[in-house]
């Protein structure tokens, strides 16, 4: 039973993580692995696309807390995109919009990385 899965795609230097299904205490380790693999490859600029995510509990939210600082320390970030209202409300309730950039679309999130890269040049 595939109740949760992730897939990744590279857009230039930015890695997109697509989430599908139900992210809870049982499935959170799969997302941890996805982040760990990106870090191993030295990929710190990540956009997480929530479009196909049906459900998230605090165990899932914890994964983003576990990796955010590591990404930022390496001039990267975890930017979030394409959440449905139900998932966004949970992030919002816990105050996550203060810590994470959340965008309506994946493209907007990717462009933010490109813009900040261009500013550095």
């Amino acid at each position, binding site marked *: 039973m595939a109740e949760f899965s992730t897939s990744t795609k590279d857009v230039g230097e930015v890695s997109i993580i697509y989430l599908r299904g139900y992210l*809870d*205490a*049982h499935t959170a380790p799969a997302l941890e692995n996805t982040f760990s693999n990106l870090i191993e490859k030295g990929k710190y600029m990540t956009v997480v696309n929530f479009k196909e995510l049906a459900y998230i509990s*605090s165990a899932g939210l914890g994964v983003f807390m576990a990796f955010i600082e*590591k990404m930022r320390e390496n001039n990267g970030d975890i930017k979030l995109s394409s959440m449905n209202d139900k998932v966004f409300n949970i992030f919002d309730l816990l*105050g996550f919009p*203060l810590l994470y950039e959340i965008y309506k679309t994946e493209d907007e999130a990717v462009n933010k990385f490109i813009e900040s890269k261009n500013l550095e040049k």
Partner: protein
Amino acid sequence: MKQLTNLSSLRILKNKKFKIEEKELIVKSRTENLSEIRQFVSSGAILIGMPVNIIDNIILAVDEACTNIIKHAYKYFPEGEIIIRLKFSSEKFTVIIIDHGVPFKPETVPDPDLQRYYRQHRVGGLGMFLMKSLMDEVKYVSVPGKYNQVLLSKKLTVTH
């Protein structure tokens, strides 16, 4: 706390006198059972016509309570028992969750502090915060050596 009269995994008990219906699910303390628990709560709440957004909140609150039980009461011991009982009355929908693990002291859990979690790379207490935010009532009872109980309830609001 009344003695459990029946330990079958799922049955409906009717109490005509008080017009209360109950449903019960018993599962082992494993995270793989969280999806079954959510399904069980959802099917019960749908029966009494709860609005979908409220059902979503109740499901999340119950998931958080059960996740805490698996992690903290049973410390990932996979053979513990979690009993989830749904009660329907005309005023409210109540979920009672019982375990026989380590007693829990809710007053020792501080409110979440995201800035602190950011520094520590971890979170704690988010589940309890969500339960309190999403439900009308969250009550803990622990009888050490016997059982722990979490009661979550949501009022039924009549809309015309």
